[in-house]
């Protein structure tokens, strides 16, 4: 089963160059059933990544560009009056898809942000007293600009917590850039990308990920990490138990990708920085958070 995901990675990296690690982490995040936050400057391939993932996974993908004047109804949808039938009919907004790309999330007003985040948390939306279930699986991949940029509303810590992982997409290497500048644009390959997965296969994979075992030693290690972050002298925001649960989920998915049905401390360390970066950083930004996450890993002994 996990072989097929490795295939997916190699397919995707044909379109998105130089981003193998990030693609793998993004898939891990989706396998763990979590939402993903990508923070980086515009023009490094965020959108392409999401599009190719959606296509390969066979998910219905929509992109919402967040701006400061975007209203919740623009995202969720709203009641529209049908004069022939004399009643209001709910028109689904772009949120009703399986993979939603929330572009530049931190440019939207807090009200719109929270509408999206509530949908992520509850898997349904309520309009005028009626509740509408969102399709399953439902993922949000949000991108945001580094928080020092002009005209941004930074996400509050409680909402950052809703994202399982945060990623940084770095600039492509010089060689790759030279190739792109010479006119080779892999994005045209996007047209030909075919879905590798059926909906059943994905839910089967999700089920298998949940069955991955976590031994006491590994759980101890994660608890040690949490405890260490709460000690006096540690700079980052203290980690909550939910952060620990996120670590477990992501580590399980990573172990599944490795073809194992149990978690090793190595798995935890692989996903540690993406899972903890935005949680530790808080209002210092994800960059600082990632540094602190690295320090936390370095200073926490792995139990033998």
């Amino acid at each position, binding site marked *: 089963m996990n072989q097929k995901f490795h295939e997916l990675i190699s397919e995707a990296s044909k379109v998105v160059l130089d981003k193998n690690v990030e693609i793998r982490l993004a898939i891990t995040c989706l396998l763990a059933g979590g939402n993903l936050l990508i923070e980086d400057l515009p023009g490094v391939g965020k959108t392409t990544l999401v599009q190719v993932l959606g296509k390969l996974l066979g998910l219905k993908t929509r992109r919402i560009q967040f701006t400061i004047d975007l209203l919740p109804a623009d995202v969720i949808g709203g009641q529209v009056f049908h004069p022939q039938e004399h009643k209001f009919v709910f028109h689904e907004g772009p949120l009703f898809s399986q993979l939603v790309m929330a572009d530049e999330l931190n440019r939207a007003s807090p009200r719109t942000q929270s509408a999206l985040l509530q949908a992520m948390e509850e898997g349904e939306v309520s309009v005028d007293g009626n509740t509408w279930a969102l399709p399953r699986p439902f993922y949000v991949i949000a991108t945001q600009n580094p928080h020092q940029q002009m005209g941004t509303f930074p996400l509050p810590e409680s909402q950052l917590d809703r994202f399982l992982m945060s990623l940084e997409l770095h600039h492509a290497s010089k060689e790759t850039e030279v190739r792109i500048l010479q006119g080779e644009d892999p994005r045209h390959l996007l047209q030909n990308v075919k879905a590798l997965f059926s909906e059943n296969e994905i839910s089967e994979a999700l089920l298998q990920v949940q069955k991955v075992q976590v031994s006491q030693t590994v759980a101890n290690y994660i608890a040690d990490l949490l405890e260490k972050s709460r000690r006096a002298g540690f700079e980052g925001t203290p980690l909550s138990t939910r952060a620990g649960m996120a670590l477990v989920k992501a580590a399980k998915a990573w172990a599944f990708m490795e073809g194992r049905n149990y*978690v*090793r401390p190595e798995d935890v360390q692989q996903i540690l920085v993406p899972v903890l970066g935005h949680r530790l950083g808080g209002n210092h930004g994800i960059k600082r958070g990632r540094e602190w996450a690295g320090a936390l890993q370095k200073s926490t002994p792995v139990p033998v």
Partner: protein
Amino acid sequence: MIRKFYSQKALAASFVTAMAMVALEVSTWIAIFSFVMLFWKWGVENLNWKPLSRKVTGALSILLLVQTLIQFRTLIGQEPSYTFLLALSALRIMDYETERDHKFVVLLGFVLISVKSLFTLDIYWIFPSALAFGGLWYSLLPSGLPARSKALLKIFVLSIPLAVILFFVFPRFVLPWAMSRGGSPYGEIGFTDEINPGRVAELAANPAVAFRAKISDLPLKKSSDLYWRGSVLTSSRGLSWRPGRPILQTHEERKTEKEYTYEVAMEPTSQTFLFVLDGTKNVQLESNTVLPLHQSIFRASRPISKPSVYRAIWAEAGINKEFPDEEFLKAPPVQGRVSEWVENIKKKNLSEEDRLKEIQKLFAESGFVYTLSPGIYGPNDLEKFLFERKRGFCEHFAGAYATLARSLGIPSRVVVGYQGGRYNPLGDFWKIAQKDAHAWVEVYTNKTWNRIDPTMWVAPLRIIIGAEEFFGLSEEDQRAFARSIDWRPPAKEQFLLWDEVSFWVEDLNYRWTYFLIDFDKSSQQSLWKSFTEYKAGLSFALSIVLVLFVFIFRSLFKQKGLLTEEQVLMHAVEAWAQNQNFPRELSEPPLSFLERLKKEFPQDKDILSRIAHFYDQKIYARMSPEEDAKKLLQFWRANHR
């Protein structure tokens, strides 16, 4: 990395304490020098003062060495070693900058503390020493350690069994210079057996302990009954007296109805006097022979250079009955008004008893003043003392009384020693201080030597309430109360808290000194002897102690006892790798570590893979692996030592 002395509070506090303890023992200039250096360093660290360079401190330390050598002509001995050590410590603090300096300063601190305790074994110094010692240890532990106090406690508990073993088994050496107490050029005022006027008065200003005595078996209960004889003075020069030549007592067996034993624990005096109560028959001193002398006094054969305990046998009827020879009547010719007074009495042809009463009358009724500062008398200023100034101390009264008695034809002698003491109800012992030094008279009447204390008529309070209380009163009060015999010492219930505390500390110090410090070679030997005598009971007790220790250890170091086989295996590999200079970083997962080892040591690839597989299966996958932990461990250990 530059370290600051004063920002390490535990270190600074302990080191300054250690230095202060030693500074009390040296001359003022060196103490002042040291503390100026300490203050300067504080200024350097906190107020950006200019520090002394290493060259200057180096030159200064050589200068100080030279100065010490010039002053004392040696480095061996108490004061020169203190002086140099203190100066050196202060200079090292000035230099304090690096990790290396830190270690050196801690070492110096340990030396300061041990030097202090080599010379002063009093328990009072144990408290600050222990605190300073703990602080120095604390500062040695890495500052990153989260629970430094707990680690310190662990080290302390670990050291207990070793300390106990060393205490009971380690052979004792007597360092000659370590025992030279009181060897300073000035010396403490101690007991001597010559009374020149003013000699005892000097002693009376000294609160140091002379000895402690356990006399609970004896029928003597009041401090006014306790006359500790040290020496007998037989040759009179009027006011001042001298001892005769010591003569060994011939062995005589006297029959008495009942004998009692008491114990005296003496502070070192560097002299041979042993102080005993009236009526003591025999004295036994550990590690030293006792010479019984004429006139019921006892001497040790060698000077008492360390705290010693002697046991004495006392009998109620054991009053000295030796017949006095002519010597006891020799007195210098009396002159002036004294001779007038003597002739006057002689003319009356009174009986012995009445003659003594006449002397008593003279002392009791002509307004003598008992004082520590009677002014200066010459050796034979009897007239000036008796009829003009009338101010004196016990030695004046005793000397004058005995001379008068001899002039009237009654054999008499002066006894010097200590009188009274302070009872410690907690430890049930009497503490006799130097200020209890006293002189009194013995006269030969009715074929026995009888004790007469002229001070009793002049200042009865001194005898009844003891020297400590008496000299605690102001001089006016002393004069006013001196004659009122009704005055009573406070009853036990009225003791103030301070008294309780002082008794308690005094008791602790007594036990500390005599049961811990003086546990020397002979005590060790007798302990081992007693061990062999009580084999069965002893092995039982020892095994209980052993079991207790095991329990304490297990509770302190629990995790050690609860290691699983996999952990033992992994620890073995880690320990081996550590020896190969290839340690596991703490944040490195065990399996990645094994993977790294495999690349580094290809010859061990096989066994490392087996261990990794086993570990992975057992710990992470929670399956029962096909390999056996013990066999793997054996196999590993067989090839990796």
